[in-house]
């Protein structure tokens, strides 16, 4: 397949699709600008992992059901498997790596997951962490019912969810205590 780099403008109608053009895509991830080239069909999830080497974002079902690939787009949780990288051009993306990678300085949600044993195999965890992180920004003191509701869009096949719900409430507590920034 011949590849050619396109500027970020629409190609002419009737372009031969067997020649898959590459687009230069610039977006901000965890506060740092990144530029890479990829075809238009590259999902944001794959762009983060393949082009940018940020493998914290996990790819599960690839049709929006499991929630493992959830990232924050301008602060709001979205499925990175249901968005093309080219659509994220110019937007601010936060992945699980942006929440904290230092074991001595975990984010409140990461710390709560650790304390409450809210993960086992860990595959689904990045999606839970990003989803809960954004949720607590807008709802810092959730009820247990709200904690259940916020994780309803994420699948976990190990934990049975009880400890994840405990971790949502514990993370809110840690935030209120001002600990584990």
């Amino acid at each position, binding site marked *: 397949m011949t590849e050619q780099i396109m500027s*970020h*403008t*629409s*190609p002419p*109608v*009737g*372009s031969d*699709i*067997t020649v*898959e*053009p590459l*687009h230069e895509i610039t977006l901000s991830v965890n506060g740092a600008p990144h530029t890479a080239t990829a*075809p*238009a*069909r590259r*999902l944001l999830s*794959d762009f983060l992992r393949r082009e940018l080497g940020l493998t914290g974002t996990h790819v599960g079902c*690839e*049709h*929006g059901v499991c*929630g493992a690939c*959830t990232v924050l*787009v301008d602060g*709001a*949780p*979205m*499925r990175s*498997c*249901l*968005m*093309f990288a*080219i*659509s994220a051009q110019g937007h601010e993306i936060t992945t699980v790596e942006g929440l904290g990678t230092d074991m001595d300085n975990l984010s409140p949600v990461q710390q709560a997951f650790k304390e409450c044993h809210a993960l086992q195999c860990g595959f689904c965890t990045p999606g839970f962490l990003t*989803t809960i992180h954004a*949720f607590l920004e807008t709802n810092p003191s959730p009820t247990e019912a709200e904690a259940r*509701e*916020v994780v*309803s*869009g994420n699948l976990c096949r190990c934990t049975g969810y009880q400890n994840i719900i405990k971790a949502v409430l514990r993370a809110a507590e840690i935030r209120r205590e001002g600990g584990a920034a």
Partner: protein
Amino acid sequence: MKPAPFVHHEPRSVEEAVATLAEVGHDGKVLAGGQSLIPVLNMRLASPNHLVDINRLPGCDRVEVGDDHVRVGALVRHAQLLADARAASALPLLGQALACVAHPAIRNRGTTVGSIAHADAAGEMPSVAVLTGAVIEAASVRGTREIAATDFFEGPLETTLEADEVVVAVRFGRFPTGTRTAFLEAARRHGDYAMAGVAVALGVTDGVVSDARASFVSVTPVPDILDLTEAVRGREPGTVDWSTVADAVAAHVDPEADIHASADYRRALVIELTQRAFAAAAQEGVA
């Protein structure tokens, strides 16, 4: 589970968007929020050669409240509409239904207009569009036209929209003062596709029922209105025995069976939901 290659068009105006659609015709799809389209592309159930990505169209991200309508632009995300206090006050049914649309992460990206254009029989917003007497605003190189929601849905995932047209906005009709509404659905998990759902509008004039209508989710091939007024007209809303509408609902719906529920179960479910929704509307939700 990766989409087939496509040519990505990113128009910066409606004129540019419809010019592209006119050229690519049936070989193109409009991409807005993508929460229904991208799963279809990922699974290669469809592989259009052209995607017309309207996410950078100016002016399409507005919610406008008029005296008789709430106009929702093609790029208004479900979450944005759900959070819009003026829209919630003008047409409470919008928020009642939007809270049932998928999960928050999907609502943050998916658009209300897109879910109507997608015309999934399991979608909540097509049903709301029909019950509110919504008007679909479509644009093409041939000009703009307005399509009544009742003329828009032809079948599951099928509409009367032409291949060269894009929906630029939907105007949901506001109900007359005194109309109470409710939306109820049942899903295996909150946020999943509903096994059955119902939107109801209950008109109350001088303290008695003057109008009772319902539209459905997942149990009719296209959303349409069931008028139940005759069964309950003239009663005080709080005293109506809503089981009187059961037979009419049972006769109206035509559910299909799938792995989640049999047709009989869906029918039983929607009868119960309809009674509960009317009872809830009778108690509260005065518009």
